[in-house]
Structure formats: C-alpha cells, structure tokens
C-alpha cells in the first residue's frame, strides 16, 4: 500500500516536471495559429480557428527557405570535411608515435578549453583584413578549424583499439596508405563517426555568434541569423514571430523523432569521453 502511494507520487511528480519542460513548445505551437490580440488576451486557450496566415507571413518575411538552404549547405559540407580530415589526422597520430605526433595531439587537446570569445576578435581582424569575411566558404573553413580538436580527440581514442594487422594486409597486397585507411579503418570507425556527426550537426546548425560575425549580407544568413533579424525588425506583431519559431525548430524536432536513440547516445558519448 505504502509503496503504491509512493509510486503514484513519483509518477505525478515526474509528469508535472515533464509538462513544465514541454509547455513552452506547446504554447508556441498553439499560439502560432492565433492573432496577436488573441495571444495577448488569452495565451492558454486553443486558437479560435486554424489559420496558417502567420506561417505564410513568417515564411516570406524571414526568407525561410533561403536560411534553411544556407544552414543545410554549411552544416553538411562542414561536417563531412571535419569527419574526413580529423579521422585521417587521428589515424596518422595513432600510427606514427613520434615526438611531433605527441606535440600535435597535446596541442589539439589543450586547445579544447579555449572559449570562442578568446579568438573571436583576432579572427575577425585577421580574416577581415584578408577580405575573407562575408563568404560561406570562409565560415566552412572556420568550422573545419574549430571542429578539429574535439573530433581528433574522439577518433584518436577509438583508432587506438583498431588492430594494425588488417591495415598491413592491404599494404602487403600492394595498396597504399590511403586505400588501407578508407577500405579498412574508416568503416570500422562508424560508431564514433556517428557521435562526431551528431554533435557537430547540433553545434553548427544552432551556432549563432560565429556566423553573425562572418556572414554579413542578408542572403547568406543561416536560420539562427534570419530568426534573429526577423525578431529585430518585426517586434510588435507577435503572432508571425511565433510561427517563425515553430518553423525553425520543426526540422530539428522531426529529426529528433526519427533518430532519438542515436542523438542521445551521441551526445552522451561525446560528453563522457
């Protein structure tokens, strides 16, 4: 009896907390169908009628498709390049245990504690002087640089356990090191590649500060940047702003529904390594 009551209290407590966690999202969705007036006077009621007018307004005013495409291109190319370059570098560092390798690895690991704010001013100054700003390729190159340390750290730990014999077999058969890496080693890395993939996608997709410094023209904006400027320019009319929020988080939530297990696993693996 006592245990049963305890159990009920536990469920009650957990679900109250869950509702508190989820309610902000639900409120955004419900209110995105209302007029601003309806929202201000009764934010908890269901919309009087389902009207997609706010979505149409948000979609056109924030140039949603453009922002979405920019985010997608930048995230995709950066992540693929980070994974390729960092896995190859880690492989080299593990297989060539020289003093140079050790110094390089130690420098990479140490650099992980440098907050972005500590390099932001010189970065803008150097790349601004070279006229490399306002260009998505510069941004991708920067992600490639900022993404190295963590990805190398994760791959390095995993490659240490890949048996050397399999690679040597390819080399003996006349293959070169690139072939042995891509045919044997890279496929074996899949579990950690997924971890790096997920963490880097979340990081780059949601990043605001770096793209806000690099991408200056409106047409190049990624989604967080177009959301920001949308909120700056239409701060009086709330309803379309909420539709804009829902539009922006929808792709992430859809991806989450389908890959929840991998995403959570990836994020936890990345943290405890």
């Amino acid at each position, binding site marked *: 009896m006592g245990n049963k009551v305890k159990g009920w209290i536990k469920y009650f407590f*957990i679900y109250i907390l869950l509702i508190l*966690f*989820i309610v*902000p999202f639900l*409120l*955004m969705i419900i*209110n995105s169908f209302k007029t601003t007036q309806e929202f*201000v006077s009764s*934010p908890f009621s269901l919309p009087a009628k389902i009207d997609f007018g706010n979505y149409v307004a948000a979609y056109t005013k924030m140039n949603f498709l453009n922002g979405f495409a920019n985010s997608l291109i930048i995230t995709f190319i950066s992540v693929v390049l980070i994974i*390729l*370059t960092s896995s*190859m*570098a880690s*492989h*080299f560092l593990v297989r*060539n245990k020289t003093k140079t390798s050790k110094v*390089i690895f130690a*420098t990479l690991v140490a*650099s992980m*504690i*440098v*907050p*972005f*704010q*500590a*390099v*932001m*001013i*010189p970065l803008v*100054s*150097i790349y*601004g*002087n070279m006229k490399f700003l306002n260009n998505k390729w510069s941004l991708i*190159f920067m992600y*490639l*640089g*900022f993404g*190295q340390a963590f990805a*190398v750290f994760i791959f390095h730990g995993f490659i240490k356990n890949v048996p050397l014999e399999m690679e040597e077999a390819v080399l003996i058969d006349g293959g070169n*090191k690139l072939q042995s*890496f891509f045919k044997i080693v890279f496929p074996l890395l899949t579990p950690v590649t997924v971890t790096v993939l997920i963490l880097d996608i*979340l990081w780059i*997709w*949601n990043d*605001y*500060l770096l793209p806000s410094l690099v991408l200056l023209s409106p047409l190049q904006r990624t989604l*967080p940047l177009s*959301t*920001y400027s949308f*909120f700056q320019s239409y701060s009086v009319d709330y309803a379309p702003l909420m539709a804009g*929020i829902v539009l922006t*988080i929808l792709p*992430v*939530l859809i991806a989450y529904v389908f890959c*929840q*297990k991998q995403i*959570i696993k990836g994020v*936890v693996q990345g*943290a*405890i390594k």
Partner: protein
Amino acid sequence: MKVKKKVLNTGVFITFMGPSLFAFTCVLLIPFLYGVFLTFTNYNPIKGTQSFVGFTNFVAVFTDAEFLGQFVKTLGYVFYSTIFCNLLAFILAFLLTGNIKAQNFLRGGFFTPNLIGGIILGYIWKFIFANVVTQLGNTLEFKPLMTSLLTHPDRAILAMIIVTVWQYSGYLMMIYIAGFVGIPKDILEAAQIDGADGMKKLLHITIPSMVPSFVICLFITISRGFMAYDLNLALTNGGPYGSTRLASMHIYQKAFQANQYATGQAEAIILFIAVAIAAVSQVLLTKRYEVEA
C-alpha cells in the same frame, strides 16, 4: 632507398595531417596567439593604431567598475545555474533509472530543449515571461507574476538562470543516467543484504561511485555558463539597464560596438583563464579520484 622512404613519409604526413593541421592552425592557433599579443598593444583597426603598450589594457580592465560588476554577475549566474542544473538533473536521473514506465519517452522529453539553439530558446522564453506568465498572474491575481521578470533590473538575471536550468538539465540528466547505469549491480545488492535502506545506499554507494559524472557535469555547466551569449542576447539583450549583461556580451560590445578591440581582447583572455581554471580543476579532480578508486 632511405631517401625515398623519407619522401614517402612526408607525402603521407601531408595527405593525412595537412588539411587538419592547416585549418586548426589558421583558425584557432594563430588567432589565439595573435590575440594574446593584441592584449599588449593599443590595436584599433578604425584608428589604425597598433603599438606596444605593456599591461595598460589589463590595468584598464581591472579598474573598469562596469566590467568587474558584470564579471561578478557572471560568476553569480554561473554559480546558481550550475547548482540548480545539476540538482535537477541528478533528481531526474535518479527518478528515471528505476522501475518506471515509458522511460525512453520521458528521458527524450526532458532532453528536447538541449537540441535547440540559445537564440530560439531565448525568444520562446521572452514570450513566456512577458506574455504568458503575466497573463497567469492577472488571472490568479497573484502580484509577483503580474509584471514580467524581464523588466526588473534586480531580478532579470533569474530569468537567465531559469532558462539555463531548463536548457541543460535534460542533457546533464543523460550523463547522470549513464553514471547510474554504470554502478555494478552486485555492490548495490550486497548493500541491500547488509541492511542498507534506500537513503543509505544513495549516500554511501551511489553518490561516491558517481564522482566522475559529477565532475563532467560540473565542468560542462561552468564552462558553458562563462561562455553564455546567444541566450543572453535573445532573452534579455543585457537589459534592463545593463543588469544582465554577462561577460561574453560585454566583450562583444566592447570590441565591436565601442571599438575598443584591445581592451575587449584582454577581457576575453581573462574569460579564457576562468574557463581554463575550471578545466584544469576537472582534470585534477578526475585524476585524484582515479587514484583513490
């Protein structure tokens, strides 16, 4: 033969290490070193100055009452968000590891805020604080809720802490769950047989064996707290009256709005030192624990 091998090795080095090393050096290493150098100059791209000035910038930072005030505010924000994030995350993890229905659904639900960037989260909560909570206060005729938290200079920082706790608890919860799951079952069973009740098990077995999880989570919350920018920008934009302007935002504005690049960079280096201290303590704590275990 020997020469050929050396050429081959250089080739392999360039193919495998080249792209990684090049990007890392250009984007992180050089800007960081250049950044340290800049703090000793009066660098200003608009005036075109860049000469050596010694420790002038650091003296300016440490005599800048505004920065010091905001740095203390940042410390407070980091302290309270770290405590509450970890407390809530630990409780959630504890509740969601036992015998409970719909475990994955619940875990997934609590984790959701962590998937979304600070800018969007900040805007969502701006609506919640400004419109939803005030409406609730009016309906319930409960005075403290009638005006938005975001309009009180002395309390707006609470809004930052609330949203931070909401954002990171689910993430930390997952790390604590991994810690709970990692505790060997036989130890817990042995304690049970020896007559330890739930509370005793928690205090004497569970918490001590989860020290590594605590260290990771504390480091994550502390370092992210020091670096908080996006949420700050979208939720309060430093206001009202600069009362919630945290260190990162201060640095950004110093450099890019007030055009005091060198002073801003000196502040950034101080922020780096704060994060580095947190990181080094993490490593030392983990090492010490490993020796004891």
